[in-house]
């Protein structure tokens, strides 16, 4: 068991070290995420209905925390996808580590990447939205770990489902649009209720990205209160996504 854990940690460490090799990619991701706040939100703030969103810049800044975790966690998916295309995966399978250790290591690596990447956006939220207290800070850390692990697992499963570069990019984009458009990252619950049938609007509020965004908005002081079950729901989502994604990744590398 100790050996397995050591192997996983070694694989995660390798992925973390490789993270710094993609400085330009990281810079491009930061540009993309920042563009949502400093371009889209700044301009859109002039045309949003203040009844629903008093300050769209603050609303989006907290939402972008979830988007940033997605983007950085998906960097591991991008690499694992390239390994499939270039057949490096066969080398990884020959390493003296079990497949489960390999899978756990890759997910852990993606989780660490997500957490490190998110730090810049945490700082942005402290500057733009508010400073969390100690309890709120602990909840932010927990939410980020859980969301980052779920997104890394999902990214790995999706990116290894095909060897086609264009299809990998399309799957990634489709996942992004499905996860984020069906969430409250870009629009609040009231707007969702205005446009969509009640059950659908309610369901959207319970997706992992929506739950995490709500937690961030509360923790940074944009919302005064939060559904107390949100962290628990997020944990259940993470468990489900991790199990499903790990099984899919195992199947994809064993084909």
């Amino acid at each position, binding site marked *: 068991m100790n050996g397995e854990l050591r192997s996983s940690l070694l694989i995660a460490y390798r992925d973390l070290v490789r993270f710094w090799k*993609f400085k*330009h*990619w990281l810079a*491009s*991701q930061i*540009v*993309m995420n920042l*563009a*949502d706040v400093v*371009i*889209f939100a*700044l*301009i*859109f703030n*002039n*045309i*949003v*209905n*203040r009844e*629903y*969103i008093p300050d769209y810049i603050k609303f989006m800044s907290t939402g972008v925390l979830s988007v940033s975790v997605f983007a950085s966690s998906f960097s591991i998916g*991008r690499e694992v996808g*390239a390994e499939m*295309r270039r057949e490096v995966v066969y080398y990884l399978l020959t390493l003296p580590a079990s497949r489960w250790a390999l899978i756990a290591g890759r997910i852990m690596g993606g989780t660490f990447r997500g957490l490190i990447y998110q730090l810049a956006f945490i700082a942005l939220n402290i500057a733009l939205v508010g400073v969390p207290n100690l309890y709120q800070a602990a909840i932010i850390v927990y939410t980020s770990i859980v969301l980052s692990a779920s997104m890394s697992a999902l990214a790995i499963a999706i990116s290894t489902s095909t060897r*086609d*570069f*264009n*299809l990998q*990019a*399309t*799957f990634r*984009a*489709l996942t992004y*649009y*499905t996860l984020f*458009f*069906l969430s409250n990252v*870009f*629009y609040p619950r009231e*707007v*969702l209720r*205005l*446009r*969509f049938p009640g059950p659908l609007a309610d369901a959207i509020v319970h997706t992992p990205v929506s739950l995490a965004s709500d937690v961030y908005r509360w923790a940074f002081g944009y919302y005064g209160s939060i559904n107390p079950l949100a962290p628990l729901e997020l944990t259940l989502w993470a468990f489900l996504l991790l199990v499903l994604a790990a099984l899919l990744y195992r199947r994809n590398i064993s084909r």
Partner: protein
Amino acid sequence: MQTSDLRAMLLLVQWDLMRMWRRRIFVLMRITWFAVQVSIFGLALTAMVRFRGIVSAQLDYYHFYLLGVYTSMLFSISVSNAYEVAEEFEEGIIEYHLTLPIKRRVLSLGRAVGGGLAAFIFTLPMYAIVLMLLGGGPPEAIAVSLAASAVFSVGIVGLVLSLVLSVKSGDATDILFGIIDAVIVRLSTIFYPAVVLSRVAPYYYAALVNPLSHLVDLARTFFFFEEYRVLAIASPVTMAAYLLGLAAGLVSLAIYIVERKLEGGGWR
């Protein structure tokens, strides 16, 4: 251009079109993605928007958004040619093309026109969805917007060929086009009219030279006409001339790079 060159170019165009036909799953996924955008994101944004007197209250944001999202989709699909060219480089297809008895000028022109037309045809089902949601439109608006979209798409594929064949790296391609896609769409009149962008001067000037703004505002001017004319970034003739000039310039750049700079190998 000789008859043999023209035949070679048609072959290349046909090759690009056939390649798109083989990627039916990819097409289907993009259409699904588009349906999510117009049905969920578009409707939610519309519920959130209130123009507050800066724009005519008669302008329906959803209609405004529909033509915008079509333009962004055409741009993304034209840009996605970058991934295909990158894959061709990885598989040695680019080197194979360079050994064919086809002039490089014809090769680059054929790939730009073929890739552009393929992207344009690819988005026609999405255009039909937009038209249906708009409740139809004047025939001249449909003709102008379709012609402008085809020209725009050829120009963007010209840019894609120039960049991918210059950087010669899969990672750099992924990064570069990720940034281009994210920043150019937001710094345009896709989601907001130019008058709203004018509150932040650098963004406004960026939107004025952005080809996406020219395409979408040209289409909006023809579809909404008097309502939109005062909001568009330029007159219809200027916008059409800009798109034509840009497409000619970008395709010329691709021809220059393929003719003078490109060599086989060196892919990273």
